[in-house]
């Protein structure tokens, strides 16, 4: 479960990114966070991955209270959350296989476990046969699928996807959304930010709307209708 209680984030230049945001996301939910650029979507996700620290308020993810989280335990937290970035953030000098394997190597999985897991997750994202390709040899959609494979390789309970379709054409964007839905079906909580209205309307999930750092709408999957 993800709980944000009156969370505020103010940057050093005094700009306010989030204002007393309260949000609760249950396990296995698929939540879409929408809002214009600068609404606070990315800041919210960066707080969840502890790339930033909230100025005030309380964040609890999977029972971990971020106020009590020490720096040395941040890697442990991040290993429990899968993250997909708009700019993919693949390791450029590693093959597709090695990029996915990295997520498992760093937690000390054995070579046998890695050899079993990597092909399985690559088949989930439909990238079988691309194991030896370098990221530079892949299309944008394929790179994003590698990033998703890497994020789910450790079977995290939560998957955070920050504008994963932002750099993709409509067909690839829709493929990525389908992969995320598949992962959600397996029981992973998915938190997705997007400003792609078509996607929001099509997949009909819970939609949280952010505006100027505040939640201005929180609709269950059947309720949301953009006009």
């Amino acid at each position, binding site marked *: 479960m993800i709980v944000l209680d009156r969370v505020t984030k103010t940057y*050093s230049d005094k700009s306010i990114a989030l204002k007393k945001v309260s949000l609760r996301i249950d396990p296995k939910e698929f939540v879409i966070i929408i809002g214009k650029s600068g609404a606070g979507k990315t800041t919210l996700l960066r707080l969840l*991955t*502890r*790339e*930033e*620290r*909230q*100025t*005030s308020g309380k964040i609890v993810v999977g029972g971990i209270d971020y106020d009590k989280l020490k*720096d040395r335990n*941040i*890697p*442990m*937290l*991040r*290993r429990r959350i899968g*993250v997909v*970035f708009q700019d993919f*953030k*693949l*390791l*450029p*000098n*590693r093959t597709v296989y090695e990029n996915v394997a*990295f*997520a498992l*190597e*760093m*937690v*000390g999985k*054995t*070579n046998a476990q890695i050899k079993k897991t990597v092909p399985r997750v690559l088949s989930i994202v439909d990238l079988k046969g691309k194991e030896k390709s370098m990221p530079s040899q892949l299309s944008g959609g394929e790179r994003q699928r590698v990033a998703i494979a*890497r994020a789910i390789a450790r079977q995290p309970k939560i998957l955070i996807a920050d504008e994963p379709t932002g750099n993709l054409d409509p067909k690839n964007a829709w493929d990525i959304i389908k992969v995320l839905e598949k992962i959600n079906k397996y029981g992973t909580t998915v938190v997705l930010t997007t400003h792609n209205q078509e996607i929001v309307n099509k997949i009909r999930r819970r939609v949280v709307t952010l505006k100027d750092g505040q939640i201005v709408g929180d609709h269950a999957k059947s309720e949301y209708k953009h006009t």
Partner: protein
Amino acid sequence: MNLFITFGRILKNGLNNFLRNITLAVAAIAVMAITLTTILILIITNASLNNTIGQINNKIDISVYLKDSITPAQTTTLLTQLRDMHEVKSVKYISKNQALALYEDENAGNKTIQSATEALGINPIPATINITPVTPSQLSQIKQFLNEPDTVALQAANSSYSGALQTAIDKIAKTTRLLKEAGFISIIIFGTTSVLIIFNTIRMTIFNRRDEIQTMRLLGAGTWFIKGPYVVENIIYGLISATISLTFVEIMFTTVSNNLQASTFGLLSISYSEYYFKHNFVSLLFIIVGLGIIIGAGSAFIATRRYLKYKTRK
């Protein structure tokens, strides 16, 4: 987590990083090899300079001329007092007869002097004590002792360290001391500069890959799992650079040592430098390879640190 698995992966990733970033590696190794060669040549030059200075210093001594009237006991006491001084490196006693023999040897071709000593019928050359100081700059302290009234009473004439000779020796002493200090200071300056150049080169190579480091951090990799391969990669840089540096100096000595001798204007003995390099090869190998590894690993350790920091400010 199995530490052996992690360690093995750090080594493997370090080696892969090295092989897959070969352009950066070549640039970094070139800079490291040049700077390590500079340090190596500086060490050898300094040793050679110290050898030359040592040879000059060994030739500087004081001769004390004793009165004919002093007793063997007084001579022994004086010799003991001199040997006990920490400024004195060695003391050599030359009796009257030995002194005369030496004098005759030195003037074997001069018939006038020979006939003059024969005509005198007595030995006019006093017994002499030759004192070699630890360093020429300590001659004045020895001279101070020789000027004490009790010691002056034993001397037939002023010691050799007086007058114009004293001025000349003092100048040589000052020059050799300055040369020694210059050698030491240049090692410090060039050594520090070299370390900074290597550090900056490695910092630039790591700066180029900062996104990679930050991505690994975001994915939850531990500090050493990220840092380790960069440290390993830079240790490889250090090892290769040190090998190039030692090989270059070895080739330099075997192929162009005659030209090198001419270029030093006789200030340095290249044959001694070559001897020093070959005789101390194992120590120099440890120093240069050690420096390469320590500077490489240390630089990578420091340079990666800034990209691994968490934003803990509220």
